[in-house]
């Protein structure tokens, strides 16, 4: 197996995630796109760990998974609070701090 096939798959997944973060209006969907980005990073970490025969790749992928769980928890709590205050999770309308 080539190293590049995994890196290119991760790059494509990352770009799809970036598109989702930029283009989606629904707060929950933006969080899902962030998960795509984090998964792309994990593929890279594990692929380089396999390439260099270094265990650090897997260890840091585990850390990323733990951080992702924390991020989703806090993110969904914020979206929930947004919904309670505005009865909508449309991110285009969240512009109170716009100058």
């Amino acid at each position, binding site marked *: 197996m080539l190293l590049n096939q995994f890196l290119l798959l991760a790059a494509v997944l990352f770009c799809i995630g970036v598109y989702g973060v930029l283009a989606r209006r629904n707060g929950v969907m933006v969080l899902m796109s962030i998960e795509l980005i984090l998964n792309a990073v994990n593929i890279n970490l594990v692929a380089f760990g*396999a390439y260099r025969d270094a265990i*650090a790749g897997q260890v840091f992928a*585990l850390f990323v998974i733990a951080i992702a769980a924390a991020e989703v928890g806090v993110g969904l709590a914020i979206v929930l609070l947004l919904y309670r205050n505005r009865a909508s999770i449309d991110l*285009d309308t969240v512009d109170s701090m716009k100058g």
Partner: protein
Amino acid sequence: MVAQNVTFGLLAAVIVVAALRVVTTRNVVHAALYLVVVLAGVGANFLLLGAEFIGVTQILVYIGAIVVLFLFGIMLTRAPIGTTVRLTNASWPSSLVVSIGLAAVLGYVLVDYFGDEELPENTRQLTATVSDSIFADYLVPFEVVSILLTAALIGAIVIARRD
């Protein structure tokens, strides 16, 4: 080796199609279910790379916990289910340009630098090695992550609870 490459091709096709559906579908629940397909595919990729522990953790944590959390989020925010409300904002074409440009740059750089570097024949890394590494070399970061996770979850409860 051929079998592994065929498996990778199938997985990659499934992952890319499902990921595209996650960011384009108009049904929020379908997006969460396509996300399951992407996460399972990535987990299978980890197994293909010989990272057994990460592969299993991916299934347990992502599909078992995070997707369920997403479904709860969808339910509690009463996002429109099964309707055709527009879920993308007005500037989606420029987002598309940005992400395609990024993909082109990343693809060029990766192909240019790594060319056709082969992975080693046997990339298997045992769970025992991972745990040895975590509890010896990376013990302090591991404890920091566990404290961070606790703090984040308590914070999430504090933010989301009704007073």
